[in-house]
């Protein structure tokens, strides 16, 4: 089996002075976790099925993560003794588990309690206990919260409660929607009957910047999703491709107001804006570097769309893509080293990953279909994008290496996904 060392999260965790190297053997992550069947204390059918859904969602989170490697049912079945208060850790260790998660769901009227205990099978120690209490309708959120606690315990970014914003025409015209990272709880946010496009999440999870044609022209808005309020950011010309700064204080976007698309920075507090680029080409899709010091963007100033990096004040732009004649729609991974983008090669649009440190380029998708608008998960291990490989445009997620492709949407056309960001530096 080929050993692959992944150092991509080194820079990410350097701030906490804790170096974590994730060792992946042939794509199999290191943390072997045993999750025996949950203990359920419930009498109503509703609570029993909710408890089942919590267990399934929690298992799906772990299997998706690429951080955990859950033991198979067959291995779990080998361990006969299941004392919930004192699991037989020796037995668990013998079937290959590094850690054991004992889950319990209790019905409390209209509420559920989800208790999780994590044990180290090697040192035989109890290492983490968490309890969540909430209404039955928030059952999936409770499962994701528990999963997040496990990720945090192992020094990883909690991604299971993050959401994906996207555009869908399932109700007739293109409107803004959000859903959980796993495609559940799809919810419509706009009812403008105009056209909405190119949304971008903030890092606090409460704002989505997007372009709306509600007044005929592509104007830029910020939706404060938990206040149900829209804030007009830019109008005049076309205003598209927003991106929140890691501290959510600034918004980058592109405006055609000067005659062609140029990049602007907008201060969310003072509402003042400043132009950052001055070129004859279309400067689009600005993205902050995770350390807030650089801006990645695309420009056709050389004749065709290529990717560039400049300082956050707009100075020192340098081109970073030299292969292919059409490289666009980039997103910067949280590790600061990898950039995913769309490249048009022989008329086909596929996703590619560029490693800045080595200038290596990897092709992630293939085929005749369009693959567009790639966006990293907040931990950089997964990628969401849209593709019309099944006919209509749908939203897909896959891992950083192109594995574990999953389709998240099915009704109408669904496109332009944006995965909620998380600022780990906070």
């Amino acid at each position, binding site marked *: 089996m080929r050993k692959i060392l992944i150092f991509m999260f080194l820079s990410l965790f350097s701030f906490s002075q804790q170096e974590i190297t994730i060792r992946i053997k042939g794509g199999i992550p290191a943390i072997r976790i045993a999750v025996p069947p949950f203990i359920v204390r419930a009498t109503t059918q509703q609570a029993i099925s909710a408890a089942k859904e919590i267990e399934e969602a929690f298992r799906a989170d772990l299997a998706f993560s690429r951080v955990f490697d859950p033991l198979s049912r067959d291995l779990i079945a080998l361990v006969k003794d299941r004392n919930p208060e004192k699991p037989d850790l020796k037995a668990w260790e013998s079937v290959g588990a590094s850690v054991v998660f004992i889950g319990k769901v209790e019905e409390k009227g209209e509420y559920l309690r989800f208790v999780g205990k994590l044990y180290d099978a090697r040192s035989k120690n109890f290492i983490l206990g968490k309890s969540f209490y909430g209404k039955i309708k928030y059952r999936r959120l409770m499962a994701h919260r528990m999963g997040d606690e496990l990720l945090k315990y192992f020094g990883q970014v909690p991604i299971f409660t993050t959401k994906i914003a996207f555009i869908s025409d399932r109700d007739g015209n*293109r409107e803004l929607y959000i859903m959980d990272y796993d495609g559940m709880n799809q919810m419509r946010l706009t009812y403008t009957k105009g*056209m909405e*496009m*190119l949304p971008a999440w903030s890092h606090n999870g409460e704002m989505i910047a997007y372009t709306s*044609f509600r007044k*005929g*022209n*592509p104007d830029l808005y910020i939706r404060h999703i938990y206040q149900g309020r829209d804030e007009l950011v830019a109008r005049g010309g*076309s205003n*598209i*491709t927003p991106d929140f700064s890691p501290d959510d204080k600034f918004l980058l976007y*592109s405006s*055609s107001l000067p005659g*062609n*698309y140029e990049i602007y920075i907008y201060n969310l507090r003072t509402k003042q804006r400043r132009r950052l680029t001055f070129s004859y080409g*279309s400067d*689009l*899709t600005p993205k902050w570097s995770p350390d807030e010091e650089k801006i990645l963007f*695309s420009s*056709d100033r050389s004749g065709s*769309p290529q990717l560039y990096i400049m300082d956050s004040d707009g100075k020192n732009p340098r081109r970073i893509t030299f292969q292919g004649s*059409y490289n*666009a*729609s980039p997103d910067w991974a949280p590790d600061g080293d990898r950039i995913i983008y*769309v490249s*048009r090669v022989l*008329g086909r*649009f596929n996703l590619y990953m560029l490693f800045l440190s080595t200038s290596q380029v990897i092709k992630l998708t293939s085929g005749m279909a*369009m693959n*567009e*608008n790639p966006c990293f998960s907040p931990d950089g291990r997964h990628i969401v994008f849209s593709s*019309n490989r099944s006919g209509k445009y749908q939203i897909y997620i896959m891992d950083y290496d192109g594995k574990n492709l999953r389709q998240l949407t099915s009704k109408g056309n669904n*496109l*332009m996904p944006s995965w909620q960001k998380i600022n780990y530096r906070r």
Partner: protein
Amino acid sequence: MKKITVGFLALLFLMTLGGCKKKEKVKVIPPAEKQVAKTGEEVKEKPIPKPVVQEESIEDMSLEEINKKGYLQRIHFDFDKYNIREDQKPILIKNAEWLKAHPTVKILIEGHCDERGTEEYNLALGEKRAKAVRDFLISLGISPDRIKIVSYGKSRPLDPRHNEEAWAKNRRAEFVIIAK
């Protein structure tokens, strides 16, 4: 008693009016055959219907109706290009003539693209196409205040298929009359 009489008279009057109207309608379209029979004259040749063309005035129509008439024709572009093709110029010249004949009309030029580009670069390309059309119309003497532009990129294809024929149809500029 008096009231009843008045009422009766009024009813009679209305009935007469109704009768008159009906008669008039019959008069309007006299069947040719019957006329011949009445007068007893012999007709060797059947009369041809008189061609009637009503002059249409856009003032009488709603904007929606005007746009349905298609007075202004769309033009098409080459792949990844926004220059006005030679074979499309006569269409724009015709459009400009119509605009000159209707000096109060204001238009929106929509730039559209085929699917072979990213959303954002197609928005940029569509805008360049709309601007190229606007500039061409201005060069033909149309006032810039009469023209607005917008780009929809690749979001509104005419033909949803994924082949050369569809792409050629979808690379276009459309004209929408927004004021008459």
